[in-house]
């Protein structure tokens, strides 16, 4: 009899990095489907190129640097898909490739690979693309579904989905909710994002803290400062960012209290940029700034452990 020896626990949870990533991908199905439905096959191409290039860059980097190849953990698929969903459907196809290169190699692998990047890879990639090719990144189009299947005309008067906090004229709350508004592939359909959030809450991928506090802070502050709270919630990338990017495990704090501070900070920065900044949208920079503060928040929100009580006589 050849018995294995090890310390307990001898049986572990069935969750692995791969199953967690798979759950995020499942949660992204409604958003992905809505994006392709709304923007047509062009959106599918952008997403496919983003995902494939992210996986290829991860595989290549790990091969070239002689590291164990971990593409099976699906994290590169998630990064690629989220990056693609952050792009306008009309983006030239080299943009998702450059974006994936930035996300996977520059942000993730150069800092030590999965778990070690201090910024959200897809978000920093989006930020760099936005700064480098503003013409491609900040002109959004109305979904082809809204314009009619054949003609894809730029809705130049609506340069951004998040035209500050004035409710984008002509868009009823219903259109904002369903995604019949200009924007990136993934951010427009709020209903699809919320279905994804419900799934992640149900299976326990994320807790409510970050999405609810992030969105709640934004809505509350906007209302206090005289903006349109409903539009602040349903326009732009707020929900997509709050549900799929601010919840990134690696780049947000580990305690619940820390996550609340982080999410409130995100909401504050978004509101300030939207109301007073020169950019029409602030979700990307808000999350990136709070990513940078994450180690500090972690240090300041250490929990009081069991037993920190006075010894009774």
């Amino acid at each position, binding site marked *: 009899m050849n*018995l294995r020896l090890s310390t*307990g626990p001898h*049986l572990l949870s069935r969750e692995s990095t791969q*199953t967690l990533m798979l759950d995020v991908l499942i949660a992204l199905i409604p958003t992905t489907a809505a994006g392709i439905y709304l923007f047509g096959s062009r959106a599918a191409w952008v997403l496919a190129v983003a995902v494939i290039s992210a996986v290829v860059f991860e595989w290549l980097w790990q091969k070239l640097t002689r590291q164990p190849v*971990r593409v099976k953990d699906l994290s590169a698929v998630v990064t690629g898909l989220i990056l693609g969903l952050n792009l306008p459907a009309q983006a030239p196809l080299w943009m998702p490739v450059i974006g994936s290169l930035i996300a996977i190699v520059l942000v993730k692998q150069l800092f030590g690979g999965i778990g070690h990047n201090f910024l959200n890879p897809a978000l920093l990639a989006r930020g760099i693309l936005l700064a480098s090719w503003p013409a491609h990144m900040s002109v959004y189009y109305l979904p082809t579904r809204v314009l009619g299947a054949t003609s894809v005309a730029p809705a130049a008067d609506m340069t951004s989905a998040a035209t500050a906090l004035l409710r984008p004229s002509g868009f009823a709350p219903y259109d904002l909710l369903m995604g019949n508004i200009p924007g990136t592939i993934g951010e427009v359909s709020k209903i699809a994002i919320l279905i994804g959030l419900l799934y992640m809450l149900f299976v326990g991928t994320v807790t409510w803290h970050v999405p609810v506090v992030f969105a709640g802070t934004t809505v509350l502050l906007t209302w206090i400062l005289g903006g349109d709270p409903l539009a602040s919630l349903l326009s732009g990338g707020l929900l997509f960012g709050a549900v799929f990017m601010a919840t990134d495990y690696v780049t947000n704090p580990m305690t619940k209290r820390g996550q609340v501070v982080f999410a409130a900070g995100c909401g504050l920065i978004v509101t300030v940029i939207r109301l007073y900044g020169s950019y029409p949208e602030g979700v990307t920079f808000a999350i990136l700034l709070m990513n940078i503060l994450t180690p500090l928040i972690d240090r300041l929100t250490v929990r009081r452990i069991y037993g920190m009580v*006075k010894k009774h006589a």
Partner: protein
Amino acid sequence: MRLSFKGGIHPLRERHEGKNASKGQPIRAYIPQSVCIPMDMHIGAPSAPVVAKGDRVKMGQVIATAVGGIGIPVHASVSGEVVAVSQKQLLGKNPSTCVEIRNDLQDEWTELTPLGEAETAPAERIIQAVRDAGICGMGGACFPTHAKMSLPEGKSVDTVILNGAECETFLTSDHRLMLEEPGRVVDGLRLIMRAMKVSRGFIAVEENKMDAVKAMQEAARGREGVSVVVLKTKYPQGGEKQLIEAVTGRQVPSGGLPMDAHVNVFNVGTAAAVADAVILGRPLVSRVTTVTGCVKEPANLLLRIGTPVQEAIDAAGGCSEEPGKVFLGGSMTGIAMPDTSMPMTKANNGIVVMGQKEAVVAPPTPCIRCARCLAACPIRLNPQRLKELCDQQDYAKAKKEHVMDCIVCGACSYVCPAKLELSPAFKEAKDKITARRI
């Protein structure tokens, strides 16, 4: 409302904590052909053998006397002939002195001297009777029970909790004991309460054993100061600190003992042994052990102390497939054994046989900071951070960040999606910090 604590996990939820196979099996006595009784089953100095090869012993006869203040004697668990007194390498660091007895199958008891009934036995003599019976914590801790019952000068206890949580996976021995012999458990609790002059006693049972709750409630009816409380099914609900937090709302101060929160906790099996010792005069010679996992007939066996593990597995029908791992206790904190010839001790509440496939552990992958370990930790530590410090061997900093408060329950390791060996690292850190006096 179910009582509970902050944090914790629900291991093997999809498999009903692994308990379904054995929880319906009534306790069944198994008589071994021979026993091998170690002298160091309890915490404290090993007992000194007083028998030699060739001696005839009766069941319950003292074969080793107590050494030191917290030491306890050891008794023959069968009647028969001593065939060897020798050193054996068991699961401890050093070899253990063991007395081997060949069973003559007569089950002839030595002369027993009962002290009296649960409510009438002289209170001041109970603790001595418990010591004489060789009782130590049967939930796995093996701390001599009489020592726990004797409070040092200046300490006081107002509450006794019997731990029937049995939060560990696979184990059903306490469940069956409470279900089948609730009277013995309550008698034991009353004796402990009377000996310690405590007026409040709780029997705490997890929600997944409602039949046992009912049995205990019936047995506790009309008994002075005794109540049964239902706990949420959550691991490590039966951890001493978590149990105290759940039942009394108090916390054991960091670095302190339960008595610093004015509470003492005893396992339900220990209480039953106390009842036997006082009411029947019987020393601790057998205990209920769950034998389950990949065995043909999962069972709750009443085993003589010193029964070889292999014999217990055979009594449960033998292995149903080639075993890959065998551990004593549940899957969270059970101790894996190199071979099955080793004897059962007073603390062994379970034997679990795992198949080859289940015994393979997934290799660790990088941490993704998912914070599941933080949510799981019942002490509210940051296992992710502590693991980094342990990997850097920065034990001084790990101590500062409270690694010594870790109870090594394994909840963090269980939930980790990266399959990192968190709690083993903390166990090692604690040992090194103690050894090096960091």
